[in-house]
């Protein structure tokens, strides 16, 4: 791949001065590729974590315990109403100082890396929105449908697993798409705690090589493509899961 495009971009640089160094310099190319990999992993894991939190949180919100509901509600309010940037800094610098670290003989390897902190922080941030989305979905499932299941001898849990949840998930999908896309975009904030994802990597590249406009273009394209892919995937899912006959 690299050897294929390198001469092309080298020539582009020589002839026009457009410096896409990440496509012809081996060192920068490797940095770029690892930046992509880390960004993708970051997006994947934070989305996954946010979904798990969303489902669990929504489930807790249907529980009978006022205390549990209150705790989840507090969590939602806290994380929805404070800047994610400060959340990240607080998690990484504030809480990171109190987490255990492994003594690697002379130096320490923190148990939770900046990458892991980014996933944790972003996942928890995105999860706060997902809880609300799933809960609205659950509330939108007609009570009578659940009741029909109940009269067919489904237990509370069976009704939740076979009827309410599958329907709630479908109902939530459009809003979920919105939120997951914005979460994917928010992962660029991991830059501030030096997770070598795309924004961080290209930032390093442009400060080393003074080719800001070119790298900006790459950065823009990267996110537009990622966001479109996620949105397309979720829309596909939405179509596939659409309740036959209930289309709008």
């Amino acid at each position, binding site marked *: 791949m690299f050897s294929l495009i390198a001469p092309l971009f080298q020539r582009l640089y020589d002839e026009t001065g457009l410096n896409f160094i990440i496509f012809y310099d081996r060192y920068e190319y490797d940095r770029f590729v690892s930046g992509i990999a880390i960004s993708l992993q970051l997006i994947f894991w934070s989305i996954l974590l946010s979904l798990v939190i969303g489902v669990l949180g929504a489930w807790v919100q249907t529980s009978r315990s006022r205390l549990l509901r209150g705790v989840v*509600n*507090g969590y*939602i*309010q*806290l994380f*929805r*109403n*404070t*800047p*994610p*940037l*400060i*959340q990240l*800094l*607080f998690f990484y*610098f*504030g*809480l990171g*100082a109190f987490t255990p670290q492994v003594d690697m003989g002379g130096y320490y390897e923190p148990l939770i890396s900046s990458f892991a902190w980014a996933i944790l922080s972003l996942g928890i941030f995105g999860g706060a*929105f*997902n809880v*609300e*989305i799933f809960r*609205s*979905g659950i509330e*939108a499932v*007609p009570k*009578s*449908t659940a009741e029909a299941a109940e009269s067919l001898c489904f237990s509370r849990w069976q009704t939740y697993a076979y009827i309410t949840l599958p*329907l709630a998930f*479908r*109902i*939530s999908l*459009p*809003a*979920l798409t*919105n*939120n997951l*896309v*914005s979460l994917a*975009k*928010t992962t*660029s*904030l991991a*830059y*501030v705690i030096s997770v070598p994802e795309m*924004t961080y990597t290209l*930032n390093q590249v442009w400060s080393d090589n003074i080719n*800001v*406009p070119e790298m*900006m273009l790459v*950065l*823009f394209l990267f*996110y*537009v493509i990622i*966001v*479109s892919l996620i949105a397309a995937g979720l829309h596909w899912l939405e179509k596939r899961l659409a*309740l036959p006959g*209930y289309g*709008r």
Partner: protein
Amino acid sequence: MKTVRPFRIDAEALSSFLPSRAIRGWQGLLLLGIFLASLAAAQAQGVAAPQTPSAIATLIEWMPFILKGFVLNLVMSFLAMGIATVLGIALGMLQLSHSRLLRAPAWIITHLFRNSPWLVILFVVMLLVPFEVELPGGRNLILSDWIKATIAFSLPVMANVSEIVRGAIVSIPRGQWESAESLAFTRGQTLRWIILPQCVKRAIPPWMNWYALLAMATPMASILGVREAVGNAQAAMEAAGARPELLVPFYLFLLLLFFAYIYPISIWTRAIERKYAVET
């Protein structure tokens, strides 16, 4: 056949960007209390050397400096929202224009800025927009850092306001357009007198919600050296000796600061939304 449609949902009501549904004032106060309690806990934790002031004392000493930065956050958020609103309304109407030539670019701009991370937009504006622009009159307009950041923040919000406006206009029943048309209103007159006034109510809650998101985005400017609350807090920590026990109280204080500002806005937004939901 009579179709029962139990699964029709209002996507807007579910939109992740709308404020939380279960939102109450006393909860906010409770959360504020928890904040303060953790600040106190952080205080107890820092084993301060005898000659250095405690972390809380340091925080209190630097508080005016941080608050001064916060004022810049507010100023940036107000200005950016103003710009975003004006441009966003225009863009949203262009998106519905009959002319493809106007519609296509409006659509592209809207979706480009909606789909790019704020931080990336911020970088682009900060690093690629010159510091001085020449005005037609030959005079030079100086764009200082925070002004550029303000412009950068206004762009994604503009795109989202554009979508809000488009959505609101589209949601007005066709009958309104038709009856205006049959009363000899031109398209522009219909928009101005009939459609837009009806959009305002629908658009206010999401608009306010975007303001909250915008205000929460302003700390990003600190990354590029703008001295708002976060940047000032970090500089203060450095000036106070970069002691590790400062981190928790300082960042906690920042969280508190924004929470105290944003939470009431969320409550208010929710209240307005409920009120309009009842009215219509």
